[in-house]
């Protein structure tokens, strides 16, 4: 990032190679749309280039990048109010392996995740999938670390309620039914 900030725009390609997969998955889980996720991922890296002077060298690049991603998603949602945050059909490719039962559970879990309010969904995505520490999420969202933990705890409870409502049964069938 320091090289990009120093004016070497070609270094952005290296940053893209390193982070675009994770960023794509963040947008895919936020939006459910593969094509939109590709567009927004590209948009984030162009914003990284445009806003490179605002990056501070002691800041973690990932936290800064996710803040840009968070803003890009909000901008997109504002611009396209007709597109709800929950598409009727997710254009995520089905896995090639035929583990039908698991696939159905995964599909249900994805739908439950998409049915959550975007801010709560984002908390779970950042903490569970993107590997961000609670402290980083707190920096990104501008809240205390313990507030993030409490919100993650609540969001998880809400996700379970939605999942159970969609599956029509209490408890979980995913992950071997631990309840």
């Amino acid at each position, binding site marked *: 990032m320091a090289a990009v900030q120093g004016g070497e725009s070609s270094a952005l*390609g290296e940053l893209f190679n390193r982070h675009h*997969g994770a960023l794509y998955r963040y947008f*895919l889980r936020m939006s459910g749309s593969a*094509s939109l996720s590709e567009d927004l991922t590209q*948009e984030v890296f162009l914003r990284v280039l445009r806003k490179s002077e605002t990056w501070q060298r002691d800041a973690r690049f990932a936290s800064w990048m996710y803040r840009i991603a968070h803003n890009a998603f909000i901008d997109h949602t504002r611009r396209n109010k007709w597109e709800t945050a929950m598409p009727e059909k997710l254009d995520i490719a089905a896995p090639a392996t035929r583990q039908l039962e698991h696939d159905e559970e995964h599909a249900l879990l994805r739908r439950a995740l998409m049915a959550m309010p975007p801010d709560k969904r984002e908390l779970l995505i950042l903490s569970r999938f993107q590997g961000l520490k609670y402290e980083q999420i707190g920096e990104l969202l501008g809240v205390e670390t313990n507030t993030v933990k*409490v919100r993650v705890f609540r969001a*998880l409870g809400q996700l379970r309620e939605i999942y159970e409502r969609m599956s029509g049964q209490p408890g979980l069938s995913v992950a071997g039914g631990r309840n």
Partner: protein
Amino acid sequence: MMTCQEFAVDIADTLAGSATPAARARAEAHFGECSSCRANAALWQALGDLPADAPSPEMQVKFGRHLSGRPSAPRWAWLTIAAAVAVGIFSFFAGRFTAPPSASTDIAVLRHEVRNLREVVALSLLDQQSASERLRGIRYSSALEGTDPEVVDALSRTLRNDPSVDVRLAAADALQRFPLPASVSESAWQLLEHDDSPLVQIAVIDLLSSRKDPAVRARLETLRDRSGLDSNVRDYLQALLSTQRSKGNPVQ
């Protein structure tokens, strides 16, 4: 008895693997007593088992192309255009030599229907989620005859709101061929205040400066003097205004 809420921090830390031994012990003791929190922990585990989707390999190629400049039209696109032109020429001469005079009304009706269909396709593509589909919509709109206000509105909306710089640039270029209603011109002026892309700002300046409107020059001068304007945009404006002055042409 403590409520689940009071274990929230311990549970969140335990799930993330960042809990102290004491916090972990408290959370695990609570899991032993509370089926609801135990189910939440199982759900956390299940989330981690969701397969990770990978972006298409083309994404890197597209981004590399974007970094190295504007994408050039692929060869097949030129072949498609050439084929369309060839078919058009053939149809014209075939119609000229084979259609009886009485068929001219039918042909006019057919042309009208095809034009309407193209407009519908263009408007529909402009509403797609994918930027490449919206770009196709803009290309379609450029091929339209006439000036359908709905198409101009859709292009103007795309110019103002599209998240992709490429699409906004293409919309500005496409609008060049249409007479702009006052409302569209005004929203383009407002866009100059808000759009954060210097490229889009320059494209909008080109769009507005090509209009035969005596007020354009004064507004461009005001814009040039505005603080916070991107230096590249200011330089471009300065050059544009100087060129027009030397030609004795006050920006149309």
